[in-house]
């Protein structure tokens, strides 16, 4: 039975990963490649701010050092945050391996998409196992929608999909907020759907809102060379592509779980509800 659950996970993750790779090639990947042209200076530029007199080095995302150095008020007041930012600012240094553009890059993206598909598929099938109730293609689709809200929708409300070259707050703080939001949203949705009384549902609603009441970390200054139109197109394209991915993943996990795990096994799960008397 365990092997059938794992087959469900791997098949569904593989299908969703492959299909989303194709879907990304329509809008998402071309927009990423286009934005990378604006990612001019990925090198740390040492410079001194005129007013605060602080000297430091970090990525300027192509913004001229003179322009950047003038903006000091915000910089000076948040030196600590900024110094932190500086440490993690990474440059695509020449010695670091990266897949070559073209087939190689698409291949690694496809592999990453499949791994992502299997990771999310593990989460969905874990939910089916925990609930121990019948699942079908249609109800799987709804669980896929929940997965989209947990892993894409809610985090994107605070941290919109980023293109290369866009400015954002320190990576660690954004990753921490992202993880916190995912956990709060997942527990919130679970509490809402599994509880039968009103109080837990109100608590669930508060949990869903909490990350957004706290607020996502944002940069003090938005310095970006990427045109706003590109960012807007990317936000829509990546979210809708993710929604497509979750629909495929939800429907395929639901279908395979019903066929492989539920219908072929009376041992692992109680099957009385599948057997109308």
């Amino acid at each position, binding site marked *: 039975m365990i092997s059938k*659950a794992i087959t469900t996970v791997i098949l569904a993750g593989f299908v969703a990963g492959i299909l989303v790779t194709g879907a990304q090639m329509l809008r998402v*990947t071309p927009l990423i490649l286009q934005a990378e042209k604006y990612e001019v200076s990925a090198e740390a530029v040492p410079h001194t701010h005129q007013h605060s007199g602080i000297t430091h080095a970090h990525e300027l995302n192509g913004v001229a050092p003179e322009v950047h150095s003038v903006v000091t008020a915000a910089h000076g007041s948040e030196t600590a945050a900024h110094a932190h930012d500086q440490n993690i600012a990474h440059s695509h240094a020449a010695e670091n391996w*990266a897949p070559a553009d073209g087939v190689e890059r698409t291949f690694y993206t496809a592999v990453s998409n499949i*791994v992502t598909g299997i990771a999310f598929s593990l989460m969905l099938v874990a939910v089916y196992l*925990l609930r121990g109730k019948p699942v079908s293609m249609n109800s799987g689709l709804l669980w896929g929608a929940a997965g989209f809200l947990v892993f*894409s929708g809610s985090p994107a409300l605070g941290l919109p999909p980023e293109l290369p070259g866009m400015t954002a707050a320190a990576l660690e703080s954004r990753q921490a907020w992202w993880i916190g939001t995912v956990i709060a949203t997942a527990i919130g949705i679970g509490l809402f759907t599994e509880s039968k009384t009103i109080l837990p549902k109100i608590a669930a609603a508060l949990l869903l809102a909490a990350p957004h009441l706290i607020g996502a970390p944002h940069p003090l200054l938005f310095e970006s060379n990427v045109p706003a139109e590109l960012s807007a197109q990317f936000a829509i394209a990546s979210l809708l592509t993710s929604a497509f991915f979750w629909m495929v993943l939800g429907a395929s996990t639901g279908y395979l779980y019903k066929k492989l795990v539920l219908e072929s096994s*009376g041992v692992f799960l109680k099957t009385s509800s599948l057997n109308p008397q």
Partner: protein
Amino acid sequence: MTTNPKITGTAGSLDTSDVGVSSQRMALALLMVLAGAALLFTVGFAQGSGELFHNAAHDTRHAFTFPCH
């Protein structure tokens, strides 16, 4: 009942060991969540030596709205 006697039979015989079955189910679910989280960390968050993971999964991170840069 008559449509699928095999399944009904097994389910009936299981009534006494329900607790064992459900704890096995829970354990599997928990392992799956942990495995999923580990995979997700590798694809979405880890930088790796020489930013290996970051560069390999770069476009996936952007497309799935993981915080990337």
